């Protein structure tokens, strides 16, 4: 059955996914890569995003999700474009999604985007998704995430700040463009630090691989 593994194949090993994660309030999610047949799940999750959450994600209003967008967001190749979804462990409803898309063919940088349904805001879903997405990105040869968010989006700015982001110069004063270096496995683990940050055991703004306070 298995032919020579192509890039992205290791991501799909059944033993690794779904990963069950306990969030800081005790609720549980299951995280796994998004599949092409997740279209209805994607639509269901989108319906549970408020207008404001959609605006934060796309930087424009998004009253509807076209079939074309649904295809783009689910038919990912797990190499240049990876997406991880979080489902409520109890009930299976979609609660969050994070993706990276390589900025150019062959680039070692990718743009990252996250969306969490409003009912699950503030529990650490985005952090849980981004931790694992960063590991996947490193596996696919990506060393840097870029993120674009609205200047007033405090949650997003805190999140990228906790990931050690530096602010890039941008031409639009209403947007913040951040760059996040992804540490190699040999350095202090990003996931370790993020879990600690999510549990509020650490407060830090280091440049990698500095020690946290």
């Amino acid at each position: 059955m298995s032919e020579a593994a192509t890039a992205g194949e290791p991501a799909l090993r059944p033993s690794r996914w779904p990963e069950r994660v306990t969030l800081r309030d005790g609720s549980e999610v299951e995280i796994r890569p998004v599949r092409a047949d997740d279209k209805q799940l994607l639509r269901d999750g989108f319906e549970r995003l408020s207008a404001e959450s959609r605006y934060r994600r796309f930087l424009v209003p998004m009253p509807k999700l076209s079939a074309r967008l649904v295809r783009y967001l689910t038919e990912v190749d797990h190499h240049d474009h990876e997406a991880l979804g979080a489902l409520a462990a109890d009930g299976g409803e979609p609660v969050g999604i994070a993706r990276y898309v390589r900025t150019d063919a062959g680039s070692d940088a990718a743009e990252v985007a996250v969306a969490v349904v409003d009912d699950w805001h503030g529990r650490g879903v985005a952090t849980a998704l981004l931790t694992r997405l960063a590991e996947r990105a490193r596996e696919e040869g990506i060393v840097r995430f870029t993120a674009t968010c609205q200047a007033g989006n405090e949650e997003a700015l805190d999140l990228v700040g906790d990931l050690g982001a530096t602010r890039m110069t941008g031409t639009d004063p209403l947007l913040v463009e951040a760059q996040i270096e992804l540490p190699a496995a040999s350095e202090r683990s990003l996931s370790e630090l993020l879990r600690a940050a999510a549990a509020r055991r650490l407060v830090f703004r280091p440049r990698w691989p500095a020690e946290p306070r």
Partner: protein
Amino acid sequence: PSNIETALKESRWIAEAVVFGDKRPYLVALITLDPDEAPALAAKLGIAPDRAAMATDEAVRAAIGAVVEEANARFARIEQIKRFAILPHDLTQAGGELTPTLKVKRRVVYDTYADVFDGLYE
């Protein structure tokens, strides 16, 4: 501006509607047609489903104009769209208008289509 953008994008025919009017006397909109729905619109109007031709076709402009008028009716006069242009294609990643994760860069849209916007103020 984002409220009327929401109203415009509720239309099945419209994929993107970027409204501008900063420091201008009225608001204008740059509109892209939903590529999957455009053939149905073309069939409804009895024209060829050619995106470039549809952008300037009078029947298409009338159909989109009706959507704009319906959206305008829900807003105060100073929030209404006075003029609009239909782009002959989708917003592109290549041009930087869309990021790889599909975020819309308004500033890039404005700069890229500056001529189109200026034309709406003549």
